[in-house]
């Protein structure tokens, strides 16, 4: 992947934001470097950093203004970039997301199956049979941009978007799969729903997933869905996490 070798660029985004751009691609290697820089800067805890926003291919660094001289900021960023190599070795963690496929929870499962000439069970097997990399959060609070879906499941968006999609719904849009963190309108083909709450403003932290994590969907029954919903409500549900081991086919 030639883009991994390209040098990151410091781009201005107004006087109170600097963007470190690693390359104009959706690429696992590039995104790992974004995460690595974010972690390194968090550890350095520079007083001039107001907050950081990692995306697929860049890290936006919002600055306190008035504050540090821009030349000094650029030097500090370049120095941090120069010492990133060690960070990239850790592929992070995998989080298990229980998911009840089909039925009322996934009204478009049969359409996704028929339009790809697959039985529904095979859609579930392929969708839950791999680990997805969370590149970034955005669009709405807590929405994870996931990479790595089996392309044999790709399905176009609904011609007419739904007005209300319940929180926790998991859908497919073209070559992407994603989870709706809060109730919203949308045009994704819904294949199931998770009882977990991806976004809860009263919780600290308010989001469940973060950029740089891996997730795996674990099929559950409607009974398990109800039981986990209760555990989530009482705060007794423990999220299953394990160290990620890279496998063949983890193309993200």
């Amino acid at each position, binding site marked *: 992947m030639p883009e991994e070798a390209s040098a990151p660029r410091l*781009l*201005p*985004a*107004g*006087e*109170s*934001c600097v*963007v470190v*751009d690693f390359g*104009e*691609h*959706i690429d696992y290697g590039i995104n790992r470097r974004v995460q690595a820089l974010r972690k390194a800067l968090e550890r350095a805890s520079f007083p001039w950093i*107001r*907050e*950081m*926003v*990692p*995306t*697929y*291919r*860049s890290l*936006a660094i*919002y600055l306190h*203004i*008035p504050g540090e001289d*821009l030349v000094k900021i650029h030097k500090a960023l370049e120095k941090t970039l120069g010492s990133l190599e060690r960070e990239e070795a850790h592929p992070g963690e995998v989080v298990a997301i229980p998911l009840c496929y089909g039925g009322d929870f996934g009204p478009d499962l049969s359409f996704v199956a028929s339009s790809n000439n697959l039985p529904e069970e095979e859609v579930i097997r392929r969708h839950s049979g791999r680990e997805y990399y969370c590149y*970034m*959060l*955005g*669009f*709405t*609070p*807590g*929405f994870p*941009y996931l990479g790595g879906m089996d392309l044999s499941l790709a399905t176009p968006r609904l011609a007419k978007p739904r007005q209300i999609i319940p929180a926790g719904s998991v859908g497919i849009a073209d070559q992407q799969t994603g989870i709706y*963190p*809060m109730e919203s309108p949308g045009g994704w083909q819904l294949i199931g729903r998770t009882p977990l709450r991806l*976004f809860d*403003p009263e919780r600290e*932290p*308010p*989001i469940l997933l*973060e*950029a740089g994590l891996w997730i795996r969907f674990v099929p559950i029954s409607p009974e398990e869905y109800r039981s986990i919903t209760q555990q989530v409500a009482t705060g007794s549900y423990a999220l299953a996490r394990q160290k990620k081991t890279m496998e063949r086919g983890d193309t993200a």
Partner: protein
Amino acid sequence: MSILVEHPGMLTTVQDLGRWGYQAMGIPVAGAMDPLSLRIGNLLLGNPENAAALECTLLGPTLRMVSKKMLLVLTGADLGMKINGKEAPPWKVLELFEGDRISFSGPPGKGCRGYLCFAGGIEVPPLLGSCSTYLRGKLGGFEGRALQKEDSLSLGKPDILWERCTDLVCPEELRPQDPPGGLFRVLLGPQEEYFTDAGKKTFFSSEYVVSSAADRMGFRLEGPTVEHRDGADIISDAIPPGAIQIPGHGEPIVMMADRQTTGGYAKIGVLAGADFGRFAQKMPGDKVRFTSISVSAGRKLLEEQEEKIEELRRLRASHRSRPQPETWGQKELKEQKKPKELEERGTSRKKTSSAEPLRGRWHITISESNYSVEWEEV
């Protein structure tokens, strides 16, 4: 201390300086569209600069005071404020008493967002460190929504010297300026290279009109289309406040307070931070133009803005220390018992009891730290 909403106005929301720190989670900053006006309003009242106020859009609300006494100031756009039906000046700290009614007759001039600030600030439960309302996500502020009829708003505890802020005026030269011509300064980047030289020339030499698609999230502009080099789409990237993104149709969209955290359109530039609030005051039909400045020039403008804020702080200090017609707090002081040791001193002091030093204890909050001050008159 509370306020009753008799009529909510067109769009009245509770806003502070925004929910910073959560953009990595996809949570928009929101906050005041014209943050400088909000800061000035809070400063005039002795509030922390980040205290929550009402952002009133075009047609302000009708409110009734339920508290005995309070102070308020309208900053930002002049929305034609009236108190008990009589015209009341903006940028001046006014006293209100129980039963007083605030209403608005609409903006007589330019600007569409007024900040109705109260001593002590609007009190709503903070969500993720901020009282700002994010309307699309139904988060924060007053129940995550714009005000409605019969809402009852609570006010926070005012600063100890709040009453001394009465009649304080922000002088004309310290208010946000909006010179005629509608020229706005822009810092190029982060994706200026996505546009052809001709496209950039079009953007910086044309007049644009604010379209009716202009809300707290962004202002879509109408005018000559800006040419891309090779398509408008980028791999999603962060969107700072005032970012000017240009989608495939070629017409610019300026991203405002409720902008999403990330987006996939190329950004030709970002409004100078010092011009953000001024831009937020523009209404559909207003004409705007853009000129390019350097990042260091943009920083200089912000420093100048901070100097004005500092000047206003000095002005407030001298206003508060002016001689008071009725010394504030006198009543409580008179009621205080004389310290025992003083009574036991020589009779000469007793005879001239008016010369006895006054003593007291004040509880003061400065920058969110509480101080207890014991004092004695000299």
